[in-house]
């Protein structure tokens, strides 16, 4: 186990598309353990994606159980290999920060409820329904696999869903 160095913006590797994991084997599981240790070593992180440590593989970890705002129906520790968000519902503005963009947070619009399909760390296909804070964390991490940072999705402080609906 090891805490891996985290790439920070504007490292060009953060903008690349990661490739799928072909087989979830012991080497992948060893990397997942390192990735998780890295996430937990960080300041109050609720997720991490493999490309944030320079491994361009479609692996993310999410665990919102330590967050005050975590929705009560959260799933605790989630390891998602080759994740795909297959359903979206609702929109909400919320604040996000990133281990790779230290000392800055901004508002981003995300789906309020999602269904995500992925392999777990044993390589078994699974499906999770996520809402609220956890759904936001999953969307933030899955974005990393496509080279997208929350900076690419920032909305103006004047963006307000109330007003959008009113139009």
């Amino acid at each position, binding site marked *: 186990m090891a805490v891996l160095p985290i790439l920070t913006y504007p490292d060009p590797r953060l903008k690349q598309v990661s490739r799928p994991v072909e087989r979830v084997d012991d080497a992948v599981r060893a990397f997942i353990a390192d990735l998780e240790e890295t*996430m937990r070593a*960080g*300041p*109050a*992180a*609720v*997720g*991490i*994606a493999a490309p944030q440590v320079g491994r361009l593989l479609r692996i993310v970890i*999410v665990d*919102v159980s330590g*967050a*005050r*705002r975590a929705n009560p129906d959260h799933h605790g520790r989630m390891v998602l290999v080759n994740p795909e968000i297959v359903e979206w519902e609702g929109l909400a503005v*919320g*604040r*996000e*920060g*990133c*281990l790779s963009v230290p*000392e*800055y*947070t901004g508002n981003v619009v995300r789906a309020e409820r999602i269904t995500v399909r992925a392999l777990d760390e044993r390589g078994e296909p699974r499906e999770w329904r996520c809402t609220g*804070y956890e759904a*936001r*964390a999953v969307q*933030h*991490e899955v974005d990393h696999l496509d080279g997208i940072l929350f900076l690419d999705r920032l909305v103006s*402080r*004047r963006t*307000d869903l*109330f*007003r959008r609906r*009113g139009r």
Partner: protein
Amino acid sequence: MVTVVGRDRPGIVAALAQALFDAGCNLAEASMIRLAGTFTVMVVVACERDAAGLEAVLRPVAERLGLRVHVDPAAAEPGPAPEPDVRVTVSGADRAGIVARVAGALAEAGVNILDLESAVAEGPRGPIYILHIEGQAARGIGPVREAMAAVAREGIDVSVRPVEPVVG
């Protein structure tokens, strides 16, 4: 801290930023926004010049574009900007005194406002006032909810939500 206001037209930001760049100044945090036909700029500038020197740099641009410029000394803030931990949205039929009522209640509840923006929208039954505030609640969100519940009983729609960034 440079404050600039003037009738909105294309090119204000470009001209100001170019003049500051040419004078060797660095722009930091800024708010630049059009309010009812007036373009407003507030920007923290790091440079070697004093306030009078900075005003002199901006004078030609101001005269050309019809802008008023004001420069205040601002102390550099150590570390990152403070993060909001509460978001308050207020809306209702427009009437005098909403901001005073809400801001007064928030101040009493220990909220330091970091960002406030408001708008008046024309609704089918008269103007609607919308107020969006982000701040730091020194005594937690409980007192803020209580204070805003009292405001809501006066017929104003209020929502109080905690802000906890997803960091990942």
